[in-house]
């Protein structure tokens, strides 16, 4: 299971890459492995204002439907259109080409301590099995 060191994580298995006021969001390697073959991704549109933990989209594997929640508050600045056409990228490059949205999160710094660091996330996943 890959857990990149430069990301923050949620217990819902989203990752967040915080670069200044821009936050890139996706789902983790652990999540894609649990889901199996991802065949459909639906994302909120650019411009949508999201609160922390608000639903930002849905990921469907052959068998299951899972909601994806925003790890931080912010406004969707960009949606990964390539991912909508190629949902299988989530299984191949969950931290790379399968990023979902970029948020502009001017005021979310206060929410950051609520996210898990890589060690804590890895421990959380191991306990979940």
């Amino acid at each position: 299971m890959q857990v990149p060191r430069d990301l923050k994580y949620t217990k819902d298995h989203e990752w967040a890459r915080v670069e200044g006021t821009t936050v890139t969001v996706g789902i983790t390697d652990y999540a894609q492995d649990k889901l199996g073959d991802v065949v459909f991704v639906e994302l909120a549109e650019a411009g949508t204002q999201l609160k922390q933990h608000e639903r930002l989209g849905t990921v469907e594997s052959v068998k299951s439907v899972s909601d994806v929640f925003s790890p931080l508050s912010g406004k969707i600045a960009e949606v990964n259109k390539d991912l909508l056409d190629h949902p299988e990228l989530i299984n191949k490059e969950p931290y790379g080409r399968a990023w979902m949205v970029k948020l502009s999160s001017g005021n979310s710094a206060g929410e950051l301590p609520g996210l898990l660091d890589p060690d804590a996330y890895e421990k959380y996943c191991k306990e979940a099995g």
Partner: protein
Amino acid sequence: MKQTPLHDAHRKLGAKFMEFAGYDMPLQYTGIIDEHLTVRNKAGIFDVSHMGEIVIRGRDALSLCEWLTPNQVARLSPGQAQYSFLLNEHAGVLDDLIVYRLSEDSFMLCVNASNKDKDYEWIRKNTKGVVTVEDRSDDTGMVSVQGPLSGKIMAFVFGPPASSPIEGLQRFCFASVPFRGRQVYVSRTGYTGEEGYECFIDAADVAGLWDAIMEAGRPYGIKPIGLGARDTLRAEMGYPLYGLEFNDKTAPLCAGMGWVIKMDKGPFIGRDPLKAIAAQGVPQKLVGIVMSGKAIPRHQNPVMLKDRVIGEVTTGTYAPSLSRGIAMAYLAHGTDTAEIGIDIRGTRHAGTVVGLPFIKK
């Protein structure tokens, strides 16, 4: 949770497991799409040991099977099998099953895992004449080999290939075949739409058979297949599944299963209500829906014609052979080829009504 005798083999093969009918069963190994396409293009092996086997023997076994099931059991010679149902007195479906005629006066009913206890109780309750009814489920292992290369693989397993006892086995026929000194029933049946074989063997010996099939199948690219692909394979063929397309409230006629019902064969449980339903004409039929976009319909999503709800999805899934979402639903007559919508979690997605199966074999 119960385990089949192959649980250890699945674990070694890296399966992801799920609970199904009280069993810890493999959901997938390499991935549902890969497994699905392997069965369509090459061959796959399934552990279906969780399924139920109920054996009915005795002087009156044939007449009991005729009473319990709506297909005509007397048409079967020993070595032949047929698809049928257990119906209740209202003609609702208790289960769908395959009846195997083992000999003149012995029959094996292969039933769904989730229903086997209920079925056994029902059969016991409705037993008449001189028969014994035995639930052999826990003592019987079952593996299924499906796909265009399955015949070649099975010929090697039970070889030598040129004189293999399964050579020339017709669809819905079976043979008692020796395997390492034991008898195996090898049946040309399955639930994938491909050429395929189902093997019934003592639970204690099923792991050896699994290994032998995997070994013989290696040059042909055989892979183990989990319940995930089992479901997408049957869905693409439009095969109904108990609990989704059938339940104890629905009669089988709506599901396009009129061909199974032999009204004139003599009395059977559910015949009178079925006659009444047939006389009135069935109001609905089971159809397929292919989605226009990428959205995937799911069980119980409403089906819309213009602004009106006209039914709901029974089976909804992703079809790997079509790279699209598909659904089955009971719709009124006259909706053939209609452009409909499916309400998927509050958003309407376009689809087209098609005849079943979704893929032509």
